């Protein structure tokens, strides 16, 4: 089963996306902040990371930088999930190695699922 790591501090969002991806057949792991996220990545590397930007301790962008700086994880698929609207920052994130960013509020869950599935298929990871 395809492993997805969800790094998100808001419980509402956590519950919703866990629900969505589990129903869709993915194995979902949760991390509540950047630190926890980094630990989980190292111990149990996932196939794809859904990364929220606004988080305490280490924020999403910082974690992204960390992941990409590490030889082991630099090819890791990272999708930014955010409700921030700072366009420039988000575009920069793509340049910094994120595969895509999704503005949560703009897409119903099934759209998010589809986008993730596409990314995985592109990488060659089947569900």
């Amino acid at each position, binding site marked *: 089963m395809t492993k997805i790591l969800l790094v998100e501090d*808001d419980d*509402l*969002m956590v519950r*919703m996306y866990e*629900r*969505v991806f589990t*129903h869709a057949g993915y194995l979902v792991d949760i991390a509540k902040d950047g630190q926890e996220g980094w630990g989980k990545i190292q111990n149990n590397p996932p196939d794809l990371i859904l990364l929220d930007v*606004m988080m305490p301790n280490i924020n999403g962008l910082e974690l992204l930088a960390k992941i990409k700086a590490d030889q082991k994880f630099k090819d890791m698929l990272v999708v930014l999930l*955010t*409700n*921030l*609207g*700072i*366009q*420039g920052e988000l*575009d920069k994130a793509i340049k910094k190695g994120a595969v895509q960013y999704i*503005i*949560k*509020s*703009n897409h*119903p*869950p*099934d759209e998010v699922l589809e986008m993730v599935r596409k990314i995985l298929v592109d990488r060659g990871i089947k569900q």
Partner: protein
Amino acid sequence: MFKLKSIRTKLLLVFLLGAVLPFGIFGVLNIQNSKADLEKEIGNKLSILADAKEGQVFAYLDSLEGRTMDFSSDGFIRDSLKEITGKNSQQAVRTLNEHLVKNKKVLDPTLAGILILDLKGKVVASTDERVIGDDESANDYFVDGQKGVFITEVREKGGHFGIDNPIVVATPLTDMTTGGSLGVLVNFFDAGKIQNILSGQFQLEKGALIMETGQVKTLEVYLVNREKKMFIHPQRSEHKHTSEMLNDTAPVRLCLENQKEMTGKYLNYNGEEVIGASMCFVSRKWVLLAEIPIREAFAPIVQMQTRFGVTIGGFGILLILIAFFSANTLTGPIKKLHKATEVITAGNLGFRVEIKTGDEIEQLSHAFNEMAGKLQESYAGLEGKVKERTEELAVKLAELQKSNTSLGSTEKAMLNILEDARGLEEALKVEKAGVEKKVEERTYQLREEQSKLKASIDSLNVGFFLVDSALEIMIINPVAKRLLCYSDNHSHPVGVVTSQDNLNVQCQMQDIEKELQEVFDLRASLQKSIAEKKPIEIKELEFKNRTMRIFMSPIVIIENIEIKTIGAVVLVEDITEAKILERSKDEFFSIASHELRTPLTAIRGNTALIEQYYAKDLKEPELKSMISDINESAVRLISIVNDFLDVSRLEMGKLEYKTAQIDLVALTKNTIQEYMTTGSIKNLYVRMEEPKEPVPAVFADADRIKQVLINLIGNAIKFTEKGGVTVKLENIPDFVKISVMDTGKGIPEENQKLLFRRFQQAGSSLYTRDATKGTGLGLYISKMIIEGMGGKIGLESSDPQKGSVFSFTLPIKPVSSPSTSQILTPKIPQTKQSTPSNGQNLAVIGSVR
């Protein structure tokens, strides 16, 4: 005339060498041969002659011998001798003498005398009585005569019997009965006969020789005795040379010493060269010589030689003459050519030479003529050019002379002017005094003005300085000094000039440059602004922990129609606080929108999931409808939050456009498609009209265009009951125009001007009654987006019967802004401050005139 190196001479030499020489050589050789042959032949002939003569001489001598022996056999003589010697009878002597004279001597005319000698050699009898008793015993003819017959020649002059050089023949006389020797008989013969022999038939020989060779006068045939003395010579009497002549010549020697004969050339007794032949009488030791002097022998040759020489000479002269004249035929044309060159050199270029010899010289003449022709041409050309030039020079000369005269007049005029000037000077002095007074007044006024100006500038709460065209600071106010000239902590709020500001600090351009050098090249920007006559704005410059806004504008004066810059004005504003405010505003909105969105996302998402996973539990229509409403509300709220965020960012100028080349046709089609599947369209159509001509790609942000399209289409659908929405694309110069046409009720005129305003406050009842789902910000946002991308948006037309047409344009080329700010700033209608565009904010001083 006879030059050593002329053709003539050469020709001559050639002829002579070629013709005469071989001929000469041949001739000479021939002559030599002939000489040799002649020599041989003459020699032969002489030899034959000598041989013949020898024979004759021999014969004659034999006859003499015979005669003498005959005498010796005479009995009477013998008996007489016996008697004389025995009895010594004088009678016998007499009788014998008589006998000798009468009977014997007469037998031979050449016999000059006879001697009878006794055994003692005494003459006992003779034809001449006078010699009786002479002693002849010493003579070899007595001695040898006793042994046998003996012939000898005796060289004496007028000796025995009065003859010269007799031939003496002696023979023994013997007793008739006993045979004993009685004595010797000696005959004395005259050499005349031999002479005759040698010369007698000589005539004949001579004739023979003459016949063959012409003239032979000097043939000599003679005898030489053992003493090498000539003793018989046919022409003795005439001959100069006597018998005393020594003939010690080659043939004589050869005969006497070697007993050999010879034929050939040698020197004779006179030392002359002769051809001769010798015959050798070996026993008698006589040499017979037949000689012809070479001169005469070779006379014919000489003649031939002479003739030959004459011929050659004549030939030679003929050749010379021929050479002379033939040379002319050669040198003639050459001379002609030579003359022609002289003529042409002298200047007559038209001269052509005519030579018709048919040989190389004629060819040369043709070539020569050609060359002359060419020369003439170029000369003519040159002449033409020279003429032209000369004419030009003449013209120039005339002009020069003209200028010269005009110069003269100018000089005069100048002198006049000088005089006038002097007069003026005086007048000026007077004026000056008056003017000075006025200037004084003026200066005072200006100073006043200046002070006012300075005070105003100094009181500004933004930094201000002014530079001249050399970028040197003319005026600078305290705020500028504070901001730019010296570093301190800038603890004062911006815009407040305190007494603590060091107003006397020197601040030159280089100081400011130094301060700014790390972040900003002030000089370069100033130069650019001045050069391009355009203002430049730096919206944000981070400098020493402050954020500055710098605005520079060239100072321009209009001289006639020319615009000249004489300097620049620079404003510096510390916008740190404003920025901070802005940033916090931005942050506020970001965080606010984020906080609002998160729960909204949860509501929307979960309701969607409920509908998805628990569809079977939602059979109850009311339940289903309520879930749906919750979802819809969430969506609507999310949209409102998005709009608020957009507006705030757009108004702050923080919106970034991801511009790219966009295919509008595809984008429009896609958008319509999406709208049809996700939006509610009632029962209206939404379609795109196919463009009539190919639509070029536009330079814009795809997502934002979509946003605008959705906004317009959405509005159209909202206010249309039947029919539908059509989107049309058109080309206009530099832009593409997109029109959204609906078949609705149109928009009342009083509302039209409120359309693109924020919140559209003065809405009509029509709008509010229709329970707008929108925020009222849609068109406002669309306007800002389109204008931010460099296009225009507006309501094109509205008709209650036909419907409304909204349209917007997008640029084909990327838009470049006149300022160097990095962010495209849309116009903010609220604020009075307008950013400069197209040089409208130039500080214009005005016309100088």
